[in-house]
């Protein structure tokens, strides 16, 4: 049901988000990029970024969330290694709500460390949900740029766990 109509709606929402952001954050614009594929709004300003005006309530319903994608219209397939959360950066994301563990047990060696070169299928961590341990595997090869969640921390669905430089 990914009708063209719906896709246009996404673009329109992106444009609106961009417009709102430009309105809310003062400063001379340099560039606006609006994408549709993974729903990105990117805005660059000239010079120093100025803080948002205090007059704009931060909790406006339709303002963009402070982080995370505006929408991810396609349900994720088995490959959970997709750009999510930050435009252009490749991440491995959590496929479920739960608790993230970097190692198989407390004190054990983490599954991956920054700098590791990993292959598809490599276990990068575990997400515990309903007392079940779910191994999270890499979908693509690449070098680990960052581990984005601390050991034992709660994670949301789709939350980026590992930043990857695709090989």
């Amino acid at each position, binding site marked *: 049901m990914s009708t063209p109509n719906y896709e246009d709606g996404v673009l329109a929402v992106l444009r609106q988000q961009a417009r709102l952001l430009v309105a809310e954050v003062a400063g001379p614009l340099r560039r606006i990029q609006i994408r549709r594929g993974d729903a990105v709004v990117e805005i660059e300003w000239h010079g120093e970024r100025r803080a948002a005006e205090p007059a704009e309530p931060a909790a406006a319903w339709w303002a963009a969330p402070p982080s995370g994608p*505006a929408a991810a219209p396609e349900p994720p397939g088995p490959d959970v290694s997709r750009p999510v959360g930050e435009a252009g950066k490749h991440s491995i994301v959590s496929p479920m709500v739960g608790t993230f563990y970097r190692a198989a047990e407390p004190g054990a060696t983490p599954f991956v460390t920054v700098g590791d070169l990993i292959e598809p299928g490599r276990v990068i961590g575990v997400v515990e949900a309903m007392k079940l341990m779910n191994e999270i595997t890499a979908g693509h090869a690449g070098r680990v740029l960052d581990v984005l969640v601390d050991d034992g921390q709660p994670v949301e669905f789709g939350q980026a766990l590992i930043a990857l430089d695709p090989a």
Partner: protein
Amino acid sequence: MFEKVLIANRGEIAVRVARACRELGVRTVAVYSTADSDSAVVRLADEAVRIGPPASRHSYANAAAIVEAARQTGAQAIHPGYGFLSEDADFAEVCADNGLVFIGPDPEVVRAFGDKSRARALMRGAGLPLAAGSVETLPNVATAQAVADEIGYPVIIKSVAGGGGRGMEIVRSPSGLVEVYARTQLAAQALFGDNRVYLERYLVNARHVEVQVLCDSYGNGVHLGTRDCSVQRRHQKLVEEGPAPALSACTLDAIADAALRGALAVGYRGAGTFEFLVDDAEGFRFIEANCRIQVEHPVTEMISGIDLVHEQLHIAAGVPLRMRQDEVRLHGTAIECRVNVEDPDRGFAPTPGRLDRFLPPGGPFTRVDTHGYPGYLVGPYYDSLLAKVIVWAPDRDLALYRMERALHEFDVAGPGVRTTIPFLRRILDDAAFRKGRYSTGLVERLMDPPGPPHRSDRPHPPGGADNPGTPGASELAADQPTPGRTP
């Protein structure tokens, strides 16, 4: 009272629950799918957890994700809203196993009412009148034929595990029984994983009347009067009102008393609805009970002054019922219209899209429950209810005029977006509806009117070609988002 409640739903009902919690000083956790990042409740709630992709079986109907979200955020209770997990006995049990309060009846009660055959038996035991038919599951088609011959046609064959208007079909004459029996069994198996069916006398043009009850954990209960939900299209309610019009006070009292008797007999807890069919002679029969807050609960709130979601929360927190039956006073008439993002001229097909304009009505005695806002993108993933407009007036005539005024004001527009507003106005304009003398056949009649429509904003298209014209609308109403409607 709880300190923190997780709202396991989306759309207008999630906003409704968040409002109630805030009014009681309860902090709220919203859960949302990736399709709902910009939803109203995510912004209104104190916290929000993204629990899954758009497909509801992986998000809003994903018990594990919701329980994990509750655990992460320290919520003590879960309000399931309607649809999704609201009448899932297994989910209620999982909540209990994890130390979470499920805001609803005991799992056993939810399970009993989920099995239509058991529900009928229980209610017959409590002295409620049932529609003629098989109380128990039909063992085979021969029994079905025997029962149908005895009670007379038309009959309706229903799935034991069904509800909300799905898994049922009408049989108008003996020749059709074998085929429909087999088809309903297949449908029941496919929809609910349970092929058991039963059979009832089908009442043509009956009224659908339901009773709101509230019961606590200590055996106390009250009813808050009746609602008429006969304005349905293919089991989907479009307009509801309370009290049910054009029925004697004596009948209304008898129906309400029966409902409360049924609720107390099974140890019901929380807010519940007991549904009945009422015939021309004001005879009434129990059909099913809903173990959740209903879409149309604001109708009762406006005539009683009672906030049903507040009472759900108080009851779930163990507070004894805060009113006695003789303290419940109903005033005037309330009407609710469901504004769905659907095209009435194209068989009520969903019309998702971005809302360029969204300006709901306001003013005196007018309530709107919605998750919509200007710029909101209505996605294709969930049910098409966008807003409920509810009005109150001291009498039914004024309530009808007030609703006409409110719908006249309501401005919704966006590329490709259509709403039920024009069709709702056609209903309000119908002479039989205005007199309160309508039944479940009303919508079918209006979808293919014999003469030119009157005072309707948008004329019916020539030929009315988009009317699928399928007869056989049944009497049950679906009240829940279709969890499985994913791309």
